[in-house]
């Protein structure tokens, strides 16, 4: 096996038994994450992000396929994985009655770091996370953003080669999110740590080297953020119509229109040729008595690509069901 590959799964499957029968939460997922890479698993709620991470870490039983972290099997070498990786669960709840310092010591002890070595690494991590002056504050009384930073610091206490994070910035303000991601960037540059992160935020997905798009337990695309955006057909036009619903209806029938997405009060139209279709659409709308302002061609962002890929997947599934 390529020793540059830190996390790998092959046809990984996880099923849950529910009252309505067996549900496949993770459906034959195959992924390779290389050393020092930041891999983002993105997908809507309930797509299987959390379950995937848990299976890879050996927190849930795997039903079929393979999954390895640093070459250790998720099912059989659980403790080897737990010793060499860090994890921030979605519901990361630190003992709130313990201070920042006590929390770091707690995790250091759990990872068997000798007491005399703890002082230096804890001081380093406090500096890294910008928590030095809060060392004696109870973790429960930190702000949301600082809690996440402490969580990160705790998961890094044993200098793991790989850190897995499940929506680590959920419910955190944009400034703190940015700070958190800057920390992750530093971590990758300074220590070469491999990062596997689940996120519903598209701007965070943009910061990853590789993005996996998961939908209904299946990985429907894996590529760089740029590559994902290239998967979207054609180019994108954006404008604000004076009458929203009629404009949408009118545009849908026009030649060269591949897909329509709504974006607030704006319409995002995927077309085969932006330059040619822009004038046609404007003319057609004008003929229908609809004014449109600010029409321009834009680069599709992760968000548009994400929605486009998922709606295509849905369409394919409907076709399959009809067969």
């Amino acid at each position: 096996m390529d020793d540059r590959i830190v996390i790998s799964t092959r046809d990984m499957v996880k099923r849950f038994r529910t009252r309505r029968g067996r549900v496949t939460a993770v459906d034959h997922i195959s992924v390779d994450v290389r050393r020092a890479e930041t891999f983002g698993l993105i997908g809507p709620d309930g797509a299987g992000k959390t379950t995937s991470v848990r299976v890879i870490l050996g927190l849930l039983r795997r039903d079929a396929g393979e999954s390895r972290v640093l070459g250790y099997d998720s099912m059989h070498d659980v403790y080897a994985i737990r010793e060499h990786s860090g994890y921030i669960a979605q519901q990361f709840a630190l003992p709130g009655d313990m201070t920042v310092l006590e929390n770091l010591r707690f995790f250091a002890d759990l990872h068997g770091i000798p007491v005399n070595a703890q002082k230096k690494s804890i001081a380093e991590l406090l500096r890294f996370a910008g928590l030095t002056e809060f060392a004696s504050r109870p973790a429960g009384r930190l702000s949301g953003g600082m809690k996440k930073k402490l969580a990160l610091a705790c998961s890094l206490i044993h200098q793991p080669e790989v850190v897995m994070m499940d929506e680590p910035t959920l419910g955190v303000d944009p400034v703190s999110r940015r700070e958190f991601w800057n920390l992750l960037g530093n971590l990758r540059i300074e220590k070469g740590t491999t990062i596997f992160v689940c996120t519903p935020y598209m701007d965070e997905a943009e910061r990853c080297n590789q993005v996996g798009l998961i939908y209904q337990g299946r990985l429907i695309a894996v590529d760089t953020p740029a590559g994902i955006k290239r998967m979207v057909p054609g180019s994108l036009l954006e404008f604000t119509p004076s009458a929203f619903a009629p404009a949408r209806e009118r545009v849908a029938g026009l030649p060269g229109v591949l897909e329509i997405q709504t974006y607030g009060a704006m319409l995002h139209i995927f077309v085969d040729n932006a330059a040619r279709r822009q004038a046609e659409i404007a003319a057609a709308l004008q003929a229908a008595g609809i004014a449109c302002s600010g029409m321009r061609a834009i680069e599709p962002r992760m968000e548009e690509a994400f929605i486009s890929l998922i709606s295509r997947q849905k369409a394919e599934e409907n076709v399959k069901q009809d067969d």
Partner: protein
Amino acid sequence: MPRSFQRLRALIYKETVQILRDRRTLMLFFLLPLIELFLFAYAVSITVTHLPTAVVDQSLDSRSRDFINAMVNSGNFDVTVGLQNEDQVLQAIDAGQVKAGILIPPDFGRQVARGEGSVLILLDGSDSFSVESGYNAASSIAQRYSLNLTVESVQGGAAGVSTGLPIATVTHVMYNPDIKDLVFILPGLIALIMQIIIVTNSAMSIVREREAGTAEQLLATPARPMEVVLAKLIPGMGVAILDMAVILAIGIFWFRVPFQGDIALLALLSVIFIISGMGLGLVISAVAQTQRQAQQLTGLIQLLAMLLTGFIYPRATMPLWTRLIGDLIPLTFYVRIIRGIMTKGVGLTFVWTDTVTLAVYAAIVLVFAAAVSKKRLD
């Protein structure tokens, strides 16, 4: 092994901090048991004084009035109504107007002088604790009073009239012939409260952590499930022992319940009881998904414990299947141990079977708990 020790130490430190720094947990551990103890002890069994009492004095002489005065002066009886006959007293008790009746037959003074005095005391047996205190008070007053009489008659020069107890109090306990008392209730009560604390806390500490998400986080560290569980049990055990000592001290010094046996033996056997209670809590935590479910389950167990363990109702009269359900609760065995040692002052030879059973129980629940404490979430 040293790494395992380091992890265990860290986990124990965390649990201890969580107990000591959280005011709610502290109250749960230390205040709640005291409240329960006082509520139970007073509500269940406080010596009842000032029983509303009906008097039927068919003698109406100086001695009958003296006797009634003595009864009233004792503070146990308040004469609220004077009636004509026994039937009226029974009616008054049935109607709930009075809890007790004192009936003095005609010719009381002369009978006392002959050493044959008798008084009928009627007590409302539907309230067993009123009965108990009424019974005790009435017989001791009758005794004291008759001794006074004896002395008085001797001093009056009519020596040799009576040397025994001239008044025989005939006490009829209606409705509820077996009488309970604080001396009997309190050891069982201590056991019951201890079980509430132990089972609830061991179950809740695990379920709470699971609900908060800390459990998953800990699971992703090298900490072994058994270390996590052990780290919860050790400080919990310390707290339980402390609680036990405080409650026991209150029982002995405040409620004046005598401790007849060997306190060291009770301490030793209590440790086995605490372990088995914690094991039961672990079993509950394995079954319950949420704190609410855990609370409901512990509540159910407490109810069963009150009914089926012999804490209140004697097990000897129960059908086999309810006794078997009672056997699933550690209190069943411990209640006999603590009563045996505390009230009867017996040694290990008398509580041997219960001790062994309790130890086996502890072993079984711990093995079960170890089997269900998983290294995974599912």
